[in-house]
């Protein structure tokens, strides 16, 4: 029961997110006394059944953790295995991996921006009804998404769960002629993304600014995908291999996903806003200008503006994909051979929603002895809850239905992938 002072915002089954979760916010006056983002997606035990499998199987198996960002899983698993086995993937193979990741960022960001999140800003329950009033923009969004998917299909064989990625590289490298067929649509996509960003910059963004600790990969020469050091806005600067020493995961009784903290500090934010703030100078100059014109520049601390940052990243990776294809020279061989040894390997890459960490221990036959995977949504869970505490005065000022919608919109800022977050309820929990 609610009286004038106390009320509860309750969403039993979050919509327009990937996976199954619920949200509860208890408000007393204009203060939140409790916020629970509860994930009830059933666990699938990936780390348990990876034990006993070959190092070569980890990319394809872990890609099934998420149908929206399978490339992130393929990449983090490959990098971890290559780290364990001392394999270096450079030159055109490394560039092809970046090209594949460009496709996933476009597809996943466009799905989120146009189909899942933009309807919140314009007051629609979904993109299909939004299309009745803003049809041209929704169609543009779908075509941008399709351009990303076409890149994934060509490079990976199909959009969801690509089959062409392996430890050491690819099964088959594309020809230049094949890749060039994508150029017209990628060029269109870039220009459309710029227009969409300019349009979305005029949306109404709720007033919330927080002093986050941003965490992302940083690379000296490029906007980060697969390589670099893991850095934060409060001085963290580590090799990926040291991840476990700096981050800790905890289990909440109401949720089937682990939540991460930085040791000694607490919640942090990973994903587009963190990448953008920590790597702004690695964006192409035209994308930097585009972002500034759209009203986002580092440090951007408004989580609702992550929508704009995603659009800027779409423009960035369209440009990068075009440049890669224009200067593409096929590799001499599609992959680098790996020979097995007993070792532990670490991989961390930037999934569309943020840093995705994999660690595997292998025995001398290349069989997995143990596995640890930390997806971005587990890392952002605490921050999402803290955002909702901060949002309480705004929520308290709104009628109930509107407050509920605003709270859901705030969760969607993070493009949470609950399917990913759940499968890791696992590991390495210290017992007293």
């Amino acid at each position: 029961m609610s009286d004038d002072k106390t009320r509860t915002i309750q969403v039993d089954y979050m919509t327009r997110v990937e996976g199954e979760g619920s949200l509860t916010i208890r408000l007393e006056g204009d203060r939140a006394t409790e916020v629970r983002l509860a994930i009830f997606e059933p666990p699938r035990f990936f780390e348990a059944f990876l034990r006993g499998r070959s190092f070569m199987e980890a990319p394809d198996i872990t890609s099934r953790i998420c149908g929206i960002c399978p490339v992130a899983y393929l990449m983090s698993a490959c990098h971890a295995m290559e780290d364990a086995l001392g394999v270096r993937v450079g030159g055109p193979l490394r560039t092809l991996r970046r090209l594949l990741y460009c496709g996933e960022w476009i597809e996943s960001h466009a799905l989120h921006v146009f189909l899942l999140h933009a309807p919140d800003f314009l007051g629609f329950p979904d993109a299909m009804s939004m299309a009745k009033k803003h049809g041209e923009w929704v169609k543009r969004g779908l075509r941008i998404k399709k351009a990303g998917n076409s890149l994934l299909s060509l490079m990976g064989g199909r959009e969801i769960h690509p089959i062409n990625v392996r430890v050491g590289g690819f099964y088959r490298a594309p020809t230049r002629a094949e890749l060039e067929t994508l150029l017209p649509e990628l060029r269109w996509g870039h220009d459309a993304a710029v227009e969409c960003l300019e349009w979305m910059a005029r949306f109404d963004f709720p007033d919330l600014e927080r002093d986050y600790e941003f965490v992302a990969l940083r690379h000296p020469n490029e906007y980060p995908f697969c390589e670099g050091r893991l850095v934060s806005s409060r001085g963290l600067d580590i090799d990926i291999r040291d991840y476990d020493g700096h981050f800790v995961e905890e289990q909440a009784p109401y949720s089937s996903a682990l939540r991460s903290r930085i040791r000694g500090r607490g919640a942090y934010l990973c994903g587009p806003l963190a990448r953008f703030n920590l790597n702004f100078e690695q964006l192409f100059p035209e994308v930097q200008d585009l972002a500034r014109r759209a009203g986002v520049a580092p440090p951007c601390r408004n989580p609702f503006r992550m929508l704009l940052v995603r659009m800027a990243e779409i423009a960035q990776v369209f440009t990068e994909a075009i440049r890669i294809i224009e200067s593409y020279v096929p590799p001499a061989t599609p992959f680098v051979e790996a020979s097995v040894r007993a070792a532990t390997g670490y991989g961390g890459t930037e999934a569309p929603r943020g840093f995705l960490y994999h660690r595997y221990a292998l025995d001398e036959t290349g069989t997995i002895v143990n596995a640890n995977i930390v997806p971005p949504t587990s890392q952002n869970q605490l921050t999402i809850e803290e955002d909702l505490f901060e949002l309480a005065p705004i929520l308290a000022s709104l009628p109930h239905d509107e407050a509920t919608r605003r709270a859901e919109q705030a969760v969607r800022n993070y493009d949470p992938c609950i399917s990913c977050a759940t499968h890791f309820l696992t590991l390495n929990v210290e017992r007293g």
Partner: protein
Amino acid sequence: MARRKRPKLAVWKFASCDGCQLSVLDLEDELLDIAGALDIAYFKEATSVEKPGPFDLSLVEGSVTTSHDAERIREVRKQSKALVTIGACATAGGIQALRNFKDVKEFVSVVYASPEYIQTLATSTAIADHVPVDFELRGCPVNKEQLLEVISAFLHGRKPNVASHSVCVECKLRGNVCVMVTGTPCLGPITHAGCGALCPSYQRGCYGCYGPMEAPNTTSLVRAFRQAGSSTVDVVRVLRTFNANAPAFRKESEAQEKGEEESQ
């Protein structure tokens, strides 16, 4: 002109990666037409609108891994005129069915710090193990063109035109050189068609995303793998991925393990 009432579509999720329902949203060219022709009454990943049943067509993604979900699928069945399962999780239990081959107590003790917070069944099972299913669309993930064909067929009251031959046939139609000739183990001869022979087209062996074809000769294929140098561990691994619990694959992988034990 009187407008015909639009058929009601529902999309349900059980234990899964969301990839098969994402295939609906990946129909970028058709999505707005689908939304015009159908009343999307329940589709959590796509819309906040929720309308009550009954539904003309329910698409079900994912496998049953909790007692709550075992109950929920019965409720979905009651509310659905036609129920179609989409993908390997819903048709065979998915990758999470690897638990079915293990001692679950050991599994759980490895995995959970506080198992009392977690509800899970010892097995991951196909939807058809729980309720009658009108059509099973295979794949990990499903092929989105086939998905469109299935939706269209059910709404017009006809049988979906989905080929049931093996990946081998698709490979021949594409004119691929057989990868087995170069010594690469390939599940194509026993795997259900649907992907268009993707893996052999990218110079790797089929790994069975679409599950067993009808009446597959698994024994013969495994013999060929053995002759090419595969060990029991290799054979069991390749049969135990996304369709590990599909009866034909399960039976063969268990026979291989048993054979290994007896020879020791």
